[in-house]
């Protein structure tokens, strides 16, 4: 059975034209490329107390160091069991995830007993990006099978694009016209004997557009995990306007000879918050001059200034030279992840948190709970979209996602899908705190008043009745009253 590996957007759909070249002579590295069979467990965020559904899929990986198999994060996301097998070999090896980076769709696996692979050659990366129109070979296990398949194409484009696995990240890609299909995911793309990228996604709306994760992105991942943890991409957290009009330059006191860009937005809680300001005119980043359109020269190539942050790590510094109110200023920004962004990323491998009380189920608002319940209340959606920029983006947004049909809940059904603001005037900032507040308030107050965003009336429960109904419903449904993840 062949199962598509892409969890989202089903990007690899299409007919394959795999090119079977004569394997024995063409490939000297066939043993280094492995098939990855994954059994997955997927939690249903619309029924958070339910056991996960079991499923599975096939992908490709390759050896890049001693007991280091590189593959895509999406191949091994939500995995319950991972088995690795080599081309034309029957034996399967149990593997586990050593590091996983959902933001750049890469993962590093290791197997329990590496002995059989000790003599297998390790694949190496080509240091420079391939040129446009140069040929690449993509190797993998598309649509299953025990033997590797090779497809060939040229590099059509090198660009920044969305990495669909997390839903919100964009990085550099190589676009190739080789046929890439489900099962190819995680497989290497070669120029000569060197790896130039990892196959990971494609376009359904266009023919022959496969995407590869290029070496700079892979190298960044491998460097990031050197300290034993994957920290992820850092964000500068600014937007800019180009200041090309002479009158505007005069207004912002910029000389004609000075090139640079005007900061139009500084993300609250971002790396640059409190250091750079809107209206600052950035002239240099890490000593490199910024052009009037926001480009910098990096290794002889013009790239957007953001790309400098792409290659940095948590805790790294970026130095800026800028003009603020006519004065030349130097500033240093310590880079960090924009943590609030996690709210908008797809969550993998995590059991959904919930709190069940008297027929009401509360869940933290995140990409998974939002889509699973198809939440559509305007107040809730607006609060969700704005949370990153709100005063406390670390707080959880709590939604009332489910109301059990019962005589005790019959008059409150219209609160379903609403955003909880407070309980008995206590502001709710996390699911576990909500649990505490309900527990305390139901003992000391006769009533519980839940206030929801966009609702004129509170939801009111009689504490005594609610506690009784709560116990009765728990027994009836045979579920745990809550699950809080860390």
């Amino acid at each position: 059975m062949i199962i598509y590996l892409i969890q989202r957007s089903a990007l690899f759909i299409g007919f394959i034209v795999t090119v079977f070249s004569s394997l024995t002579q063409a490939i000297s590295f066939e043993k280094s490329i492995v098939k990855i069979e994954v059994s997955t467990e997927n939690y249903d965020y619309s029924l958070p107390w339910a056991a996960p559904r079991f499923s599975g899929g096939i992908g490709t990986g390759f050896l890049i160091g001693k007991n280091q198999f590189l593959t895509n994060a999406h191949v091994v996301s939500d995995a319950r069991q991972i088995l690795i097998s080599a081309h034309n070999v029957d034996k399967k090896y149990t593997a586990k995830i050593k590091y996983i980076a959902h933001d750049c769709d890469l993962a590093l696996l290791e197997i329990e007993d590496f002995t059989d692979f000790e003599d297998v050659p390790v694949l190496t990366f080509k240091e420079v990006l391939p040129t446009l129109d140069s040929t690449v070979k993509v190797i993998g296990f598309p649509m299953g099978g025990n033997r590797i398949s090779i497809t060939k194409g040229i590099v059509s484009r090198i660009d920044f694009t969305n990495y669909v696995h997390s839903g919100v990240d964009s990085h550099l890609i190589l676009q190739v016209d080789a046929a890439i299909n489900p099962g190819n995911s995680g497989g290497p793309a070669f120029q000569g004997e060197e790896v130039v990228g990892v196959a990971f996604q494609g376009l359904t709306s266009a023919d022959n557009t496969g995407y590869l994760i290029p070496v700079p992105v892979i190298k960044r991942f491998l460097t990031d995990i050197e300290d034993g943890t994957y920290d992820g991409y850092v964000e500068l957290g600014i937007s800019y306007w180009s200041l090309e009009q002479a009158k505007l330059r005069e207004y912002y006191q910029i000389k004609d000879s000075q090139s640079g860009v005007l900061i139009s937005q500084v993300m609250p809680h971002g790396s640059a918050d409190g250091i750079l300001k809107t209206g600052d005119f950035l002239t240099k980043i890490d000593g490199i001059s910024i052009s009037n359109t926001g480009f910098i020269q990096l290794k002889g190539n013009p790239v957007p200034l953001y790309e400098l942050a792409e290659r940095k790590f948590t805790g790294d510094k970026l130095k800026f030279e800028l003009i603020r109110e006519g004065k030349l200023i130097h500033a240093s920004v310590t880079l960090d992840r924009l943590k609030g962004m996690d709210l908008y990323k797809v969550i993998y491998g995590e059991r959904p948190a919930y709190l069940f009380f008297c027929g009401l189920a509360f869940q933290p608002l995140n990409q998974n709970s939002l889509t699973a319940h198809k939440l559509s209340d305007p107040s809730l959606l607006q609060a969700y979209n704005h949370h990153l920029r709100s005063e406390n983006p670390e707080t959880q947004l709590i939604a009332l996602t489910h109301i059990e049909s019962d005589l005790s809940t019959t008059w409150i059904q219209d609160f379903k899908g609403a955003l909880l603001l407070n309980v008995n005037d206590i502001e709710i900032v996390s699911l576990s705190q909500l649990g505490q507040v309900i527990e305390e308030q139901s003992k000391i107050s006769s009533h519980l008043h839940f206030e929801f965003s966009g609702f004129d009336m509170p939801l009111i429960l009689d504490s005594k009745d609610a506690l009784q109904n709560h116990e009765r419903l728990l027994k009836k449904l045979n579920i745990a009253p809550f699950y809080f993840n860390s």
Partner: protein
Amino acid sequence: MRSSFPLLFISCLSCLLLIISCKPLESSNSQTSTHPEIAEEAKDHFSQSFIRIQSTIKAPLAHAPWQLPKPQNQYGMGVVLENGYILTSASMVANTSYIEISSSDDLIKEQAVVVACDYDSNLALLQSQLGTDSQLKSTGISLSQPITKDDTAQIWQLESQGETLTTTATFQKALMISTIGEVGSTLGYQFKASLQRSSNSFCLPVIKDEKLLGIMVSYRADEQRCTSVSLESIQRFIHTFENNGNYGLPLLGLNFKNTLSPTYRDWLKLPHDEQGIIVTKIIPNSPIEQAGIQKYDVITHIEEYDIDSKGYFNHPNYPKIFWTALIEQAYPKQATLKMKGYRKGEPIEFDVPLNQELKKHQKLIRNYFDEDPLYFVYGGFIFQELSLPYLSTVYGGKWLQNVPYSYFNLVNNELLSDLDPESKRVVILSRVIPSPITRGYTGVEGSIITHINGEKINDIHDLKSQLSLAPTAQSLGLHTLKLDREHQINKIVIDIEGAQKVNQTLQQRGLPLFNF
């Protein structure tokens, strides 16, 4: 065969399904009965009371008012009243550039003018431009008595060759229907009827015993259900016309909820034998607030009627109907509406003023019937006033989900209110056309303009006068616009000299710089 006919049943903005007829059809008469009680000769005479109306609609484009709207024709019917004027629906005449009336046999055609129009009641009065010289022979129809449940009426249609068609419609109930202007609701009738597609069916007369009962304004073919403007609305409209009064209905300014939940009833200390509705939100300065009503008051009686837990009352003529019907029953005869209820278990009484003041103070323009969407172009920046048609055109039906957070805040808190009496309208930067003056400014489209050169902007006229000012010595030849944007640069500066040059080129390309 069916699919080759032009589309006859379409939905309109106000969620009512309106019948539109694109061209006359050769229809079979088998579904339609001739009214048995009217003899042929009498029917001929009677049919002279019906006038064909063809109107050319040029509805302004809310998101791009500088573009010329495509004219669209719609066909409907009017009824000649005893006062000689022709009664039709307001949607037949809203945003029209031309209205033509013709005799039922289509032989005489004359241009018509609108004499009176009430968008809240969806009614309009027309007369021939020729006045008393009109060649249209007509007989006036008087108004019917109210209809009762299971009573029948006839819906009249005109076929292309001049024949009249009548369809028997069974009265089901009176109900509150949304007004076409997206403000409040009004009394309407619901009938069960199996209508056939025919010409001039955009609005049709509903006749009972040869007298006018209503004007049918929507039809759902799948449910064979149609809605008409009520007799009461017609009476009020004519009364207002004859007395030179103000058209339209009052807005009270409240949100409410039912009292079904025992928990709410206990919490509000509502006596066990009382029903009614809970006031859950009050618009500041609204008639409800002026009357002294507070949030969480329960209204149990309005005038002499008991309001039930779901908000309905027993109407003397009709099956149970929603309490808002009492507003238009009292208006404009009464200056206030008497309400009784409970606050924390204690009885309370109020006189709620009935007026249309609240409607005048709406920051968000609800429709473009009486005014055009105003715009002002300056150097490639296009400014407009925020309106409901703009929001639904740009951000879709679920616009409240999709609008920028600044709009959401505004709409959520001040949808109908006049919290800040200074601020009349919300001026936005609706569009940025690429030009030397707009170069470099990205992501500013949709921003709310709060100040220009330090002066507060309350409507587009303020904006125009500020941007028309000559540069001062301190201004560096620039206008400074302050925008309502969080965590983002909140001002843009525009080079005056450059903007004037851009304006000239835009004008040369046929874009008028403003429309007011």
